[in-house]
């Protein structure tokens, strides 16, 4: 074989096919997604994260949290994610592409050294607990259990208290083992990371993630959602970190 041009064309063609398939085609299929009206709450989903949580997303990225924590719930029957309580929505609980619309970067992760965090905000919404866990992961675990998560002490500031000074409002409430006369205060990055973690939830009922039929009865009719608008404007739910609460309750 001595035909360089033919070889080049063949290689070009093979690569082009792969590129068209996995880079261009998905872009054409879901590249212009927008927030849609959720079937249950009638609010736009996903909501854009608030400033603090977006800042926390960058702390999460910079410290490579995604090397140990995934952010995706696999479908029912494909692994035990749902049974483990990691799912956010009742029904087809797996994560769908819509959930990641405003993530930048999208950090799905490929290992579960720690638990999945796709719906962490639904399980934990107490900032103090999150901060304590970040400062000393072992302290928030039961005595018999062991965490391999490294402490993120660099996200906190250890301050020496002046004579007569009491702990500031922000300081962590640590065990008695911590030397007296000092306090641990979370930095802005720690607060941001906690805000991001609390903002993690994928619980809205969507067209592609419908409620699960448990009986033969017709599904409960939910608020009729208007057609998705081709706009990027996110009203109402946009400014909050809190998990969207279903309005139909």
């Amino acid at each position, binding site marked *: *074989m*001595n*035909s*360089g041009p033919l070889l*080049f064309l*063949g*290689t070009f063609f*093979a*690569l082009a*096919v*792969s*590129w068209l398939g*996995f*880079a261009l085609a*998905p872009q054409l299929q*879901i*590249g212009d*997604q927008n927030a849609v009206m959720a079937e249950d709450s009638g609010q736009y989903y996903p909501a854009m994260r608030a400033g603090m949580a977006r800042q926390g997303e960058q702390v999460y*990225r*910079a*410290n*490579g*949290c*995604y*090397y*140990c924590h995934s952010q*995706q719930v696999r*479908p029912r029957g*494909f*692994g*035990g994610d749902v049974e*483990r309580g990691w799912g956010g929505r009742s029904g087809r609980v*797996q*994560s*769908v*592409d*819509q959930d*990641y*619309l*405003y*993530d*930048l*970067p*999208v950090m*799905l*992760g*490929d*290992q579960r050294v*720690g*638990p999945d965090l796709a719906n962490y905000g639904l399980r934990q919404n107490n900032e103090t607990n999150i901060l304590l866990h970040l400062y000393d*992961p072992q302290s928030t*675990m039961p005595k018999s*259990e062991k*965490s*391999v998560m*490294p*402490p*993120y002490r*660099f*996200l906190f500031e250890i301050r020496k208290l002046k004579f007569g000074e009491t702990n500031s409002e922000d300081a962590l409430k640590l065990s008695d083992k911590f030397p007296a006369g000092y306090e641990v205060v979370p930095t802005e990055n720690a607060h941001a990371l906690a805000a991001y973690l609390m903002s993690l939830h994928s619980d809205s009922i969507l067209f592609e993630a419908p409620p699960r039929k448990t009986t033969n009865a017709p599904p409960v009719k939910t608020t009729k959602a208007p057609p998705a608008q081709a706009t990027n404007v996110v009203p109402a739910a946009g400014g909050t970190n809190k998990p969207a609460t279903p309005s139909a309750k």
Partner: protein
Amino acid sequence: MSEISSPSQLNPGGGGGQADAPEPVLEIEASCRAPVLLLFVSALVWLLVGSVFGMIAAIKFHGTNFLADCSWLTYGRVHPAHLNALVYGFAAQAGLGVALWMVAHLGRTRLAFAPAIIVGAKLWNLGVALGILGILYGESTGYEWLEMPRYASATLFCGYTLIALGGLVTLHKRRERQLYISQIFVLAALFWFPWIYSTASLLLVVKPVRGALQAGLDYWYANNLMNIWFGFIGLAAAFYFIPKIVKRPLYSQYIGIFIFATLAFFGSWGGIPEGTPLPAWMSAMSTMGAVVMVVPILGVAYNVLRTLMCALPKWGESRSFSFFHFGVKCYVLAGLAGALMATIRFGKITNFTWFVPAHTQLFLYGFFAMTMFGAIYYIVPRLVGAEFLKPGLITLHLFLAGGGILLYVAPLAIGGVKQGMMLNDPTKSFSEITASSLMFLRISTMGDALMVLGHLVMFLNVAGLLVSVGRKCATAAWVGHTKPVEVTP
């Protein structure tokens, strides 16, 4: 038997291509010396740097408080620094060095644009250094395998362009017109990298696409980098050096071309696991690609086995041969494991477990790095025109690296399957799962440590040879310049 050195001799049947008068081998070596040695030495330095990061990351599983107060050295930064040093610092540079040397020798022509390649290699090293510092500083992009920040990837891209240009021009100017299978693999790899790297960098780092598409692109890039780029260069080396060492032509060039075509068309589709939040057809296509890849992988095994039939060199006859042999075995094993992982039945167990890094390391280290080690041991003495001072160290390295890989991959693979089965059983608590995988992790650290020792041995061996040759040259030059002037009366 005379040494096999050209495509017509490596091809079964031989002959066929018209050839211009070949350049003398010594001149080819001289043209390769500076650029290829630069690439090799920097690759080995990055290998050591990466090992240090790797050890720090591994020790963190033994004591979570280890270096925990320094943000630069937290696990989520040291781990990608380790991977990037290994992939872009070591593997890519060693691969490029071997590829350039093979292209020059197979084409029986001098390496073209050597100064440009040297500049390119320096730029590449600058890019890797910037990238790793950026990751440690917290500027990682957040995409696995593409963590280096924008400024580093731009530098890498410029460096790569210069190096690849030298390779392509050398290929074009070849004196031996007939192409050998290794040249085909190298040519494709040289084109493939800039395409996937620019696509991924532009669409992820410079102007990110929306939402889950980012994850899809990242999977695509990582899979192409591994299976195609590293796969092609590693196979090019295996198909070149194994026949050369055993002094027999490759069993079948046609099987080689078949392997090339099937890998190019199907290998580039893998990488997206089942159950990801992407359109389902993507993971379905990926599974198809990974499973079809079994055919070319078995083809590699068959071609190499038939080449070696009754011609296995005696132990100690060629020290680099065992590295290639080990590498090909790991390639086949990693390919089969990859196909298994892509199926739904097995994938739902191994997804998100330690099986994933075990598979990656088996391919990247067991196959690619071992093949490159063999090639470096083969090439360096020829480049400098002197044998290794302590050839026994090569055997020591082989045992350290081989043992290290087995001790690293086997526990993680077994531990990964166990972890996956426990994860899928909701009655097992998460901390129970963590506790059960810790033992496997700790064994794998021993494998890590053996590999690091191996790297050190290799570095000392190569550095020792280069220093002794350098000293000899310097002495000769000194003597030449300072000899007494003969005064004629």
